[in-house]
């Protein structure tokens, strides 16, 4: 369970853009169409096979739809549990890479050095989604949240919250406030 520190409040929560989820749902939909159309085609073109094995064909249809149902929720889980949480104290990145590989990263605003965005391709440009990369200090390295909606707005929000946080908290003199450009 994700838990916050005392006096920590969530300011924004971001998930991936809906379009990658739509592609997953569309693939599942195509699978369902194939499962429904295949027995109809068998019935039309090989009627003797359909008559002989109709019970087995219906049984396999149901199993195939059950498998697609499971894949549907795998896609939804992957989408829903990948989340960026911007609180007034830190950034929390939760990413699910497959069902058994989960990364939860917490970055204090003090450690954020740079925030950059990347929008590559026709569809991301048209639907306004892309990657937001956080460059953090020291050994923490770089964190990328992929396919996030309105990446430039998210970047602006992070920089604004970071600057507010640094102006109200004591920090190292070398850490300069990032300008939102």
């Amino acid at each position, binding site marked *: 369970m994700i838990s916050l520190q005392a006096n920590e409040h969530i300011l924004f929560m971001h998930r991936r853009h809906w379009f990658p989820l739509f592609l997953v749902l569309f693939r599942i939909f195509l699978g369902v169409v194939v499962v429904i159309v295949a027995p109809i085609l068998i019935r039309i073109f*090989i009627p003797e096979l359909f008559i002989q094995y109709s019970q087995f064909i219906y*049984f396999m249809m*149901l199993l195939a739809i*059950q498998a697609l*149902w499971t894949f549907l929720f795998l896609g939804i889980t992957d989408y*829903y549990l990948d989340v960026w949480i911007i609180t007034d104290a830190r950034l929390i990145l939760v990413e699910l890479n497959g069902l*058994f590989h*989960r990364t939860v990263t917490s970055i204090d605003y003090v450690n954020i050095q740079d925030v950059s965005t990347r929008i590559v391709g026709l569809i991301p440009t048209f639907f306004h989604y892309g990657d937001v990369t956080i460059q953090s200090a020291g050994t923490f390295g770089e964190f990328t949240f992929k396919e996030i909606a309105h990446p430039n707005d998210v970047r602006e929000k992070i920089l604004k919250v970071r600057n507010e946080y640094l102006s109200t908290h004591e920090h190292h003199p070398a850490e300069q406030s990032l300008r939102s450009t």
Partner: protein
Amino acid sequence: MDYFDSLQGIMGLELLAPFFFGVVQIFSLVLAIVIRYHFRHFSFAHDQRAKVISNVFLAGVIAFFAGSLILLIPFLL
């Protein structure tokens, strides 16, 4: 047709159907447990939508299990 006949000759539908049933049910059951675990443990306590998604998924798996079990019975008799 020939391939299916030879496959049926090796296993028979009364073996083939339970085999596919077992594979799909085990696959779904394992994923249902893992997905419910993820939704229960890696979302916020107040996130009702996460609970709804995991419950809908589990309800679907149970319904499909019951449906395919009913369709499996003729192959077992």
